[in-house]
């Protein structure tokens, strides 16, 4: 359990997907103009990351590594992600039409969100086990969610300030992401050992 919390905190704050690795920047920049839509996309990312990560772990462990076909990893992972997104979309549509309406167009977009595939590839290269990969998926998704909400709120405020014309919009978004990244760097002072189950160098 300590391990779970440890990796969750680490992936959500210290090694934030967006602010430390730039994963999912495209949708991050494109959909962060209002808090409401950012909220929807953030939820969808948590959802899909949390689901695809354990599935990809199982497939990687029991199919790819077992039969020594690791070179197929990219194709298999992206196929899993695409089909999971499709599946999640159908289930959400049936179970909760209101959530479906809220997530709406963002769900299919998530297939090509680098954070999802990047999460799975990081999971393989860091050799996480099943629990750790679930924690990494949820934590990474949560960190992504936090970052996009924060920048959307800042950008909403920014609309009423006097920014140099050439920096308006995209330029400011880049600067802000950089500043937020710096701010998040200070969180690297968190000592994961506090939560117990500390595993060094992972």
């Amino acid at each position, binding site marked *: 359990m300590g391990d779970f919390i440890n990796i969750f905190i680490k992936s959500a704050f210290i090694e934030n997907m967006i*602010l*430390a*690795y*730039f*994963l*999912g*920047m*495209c949708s991050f*920049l*494109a959909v962060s*103009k209002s808090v409401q839509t950012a909220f929807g996309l953030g939820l969808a990312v948590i959802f899909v990351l949390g689901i695809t990560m354990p599935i990809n772990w199982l497939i990687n462990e029991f199919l790819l590594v077992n039969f020594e076909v690791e*070179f*197929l*990893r*990219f*194709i298999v992972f*992206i*196929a899993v992600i*695409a089909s999971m997104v499709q599946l999640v979309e159908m289930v959400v549509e049936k179970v909760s039409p209101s959530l479906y309406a809220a997530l709406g167009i963002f769900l299919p977009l998530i*297939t*090509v*969100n*680098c954070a*999802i*595939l*990047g999460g799975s*590839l*990081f999971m393989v*290269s860091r050799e996480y086990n099943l629990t750790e990969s679930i924690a990494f998926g949820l934590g990474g998704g949560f960190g992504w969610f936090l970052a996009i909400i924060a920048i959307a709120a800042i950008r909403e405020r920014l609309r009423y300030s006097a920014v*140099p*014309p*050439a*920096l*308006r*919009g*995209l*330029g*400011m978004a*880049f*600067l802000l*992401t*950089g*500043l937020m*990244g*710096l701010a998040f*760097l200070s969180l690297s002072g968190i000592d994961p050992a506090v939560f117990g189950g500390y595993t060094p160098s992972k």
Partner: protein
Amino acid sequence: MATTTETKIAEKEPWFSKKERVLMTDPLLDNNPITIQVLGVCSALAVTSLVYPSFVMAIAVVFVCAFANLFTSLLRNTIPKAVRLIVQLVIIATLVTLVNEALKAINYPVYKQLSVYIGLIITNCIVMGRLEAFAMANKPWRSFLDGIGNGLGYGLILIVVGFFRELFGKGTLLAGSPIPMFIIGAGEDYWIDTTTPGQWGNTLFWWYANNNLMVMSVAAMFVIAVMIWWQRSRNPKLVDIS
């Protein structure tokens, strides 16, 4: 009558006509994938702390972009609309797998350095975006050129960002490549041996202390923001109103 003249012109058109050249040069500056189209910022900015890996990444993206465009364009009339995204993803994933295995065999240190970011070319929005916006509606040769152009526009940004980050962050240029340069500062090495004195001669800027901010990934954001600033001040038409 009009149609026959049109076909004649099309037949006579050389391979590198002006229109085709624009396809390749336009994405370099005024329609740059990163700073104007905002595509593909995702996967590769974390690799720009050194010039050489950025350069390798740029080559990989040009290759994948060009050939994915070519193959999609060749297949564009046979792909059903409902499954086109899956087909495109399979084409891209196959090409990326090729690049990945080739790089692993040719240059293992750089492969380690790029780690997951080569695989992330699959979800790089430039490749998908160009397939959707261009290759699905255009002839193979033009799509191929468009792919090269956009890949180059992307690579250009990577290399420029890598240049500033490596120069000010590490004091070197092209460290780890066949032609490493020791320019300013103490030059903390990645794979090169800087402990041997006199290997690169005495540097003029011995007083320069490396700026560690530039090594951090956030520096890429600042460098790109400055590039956007410069680009849009130069050409006010590019300023977005929102």
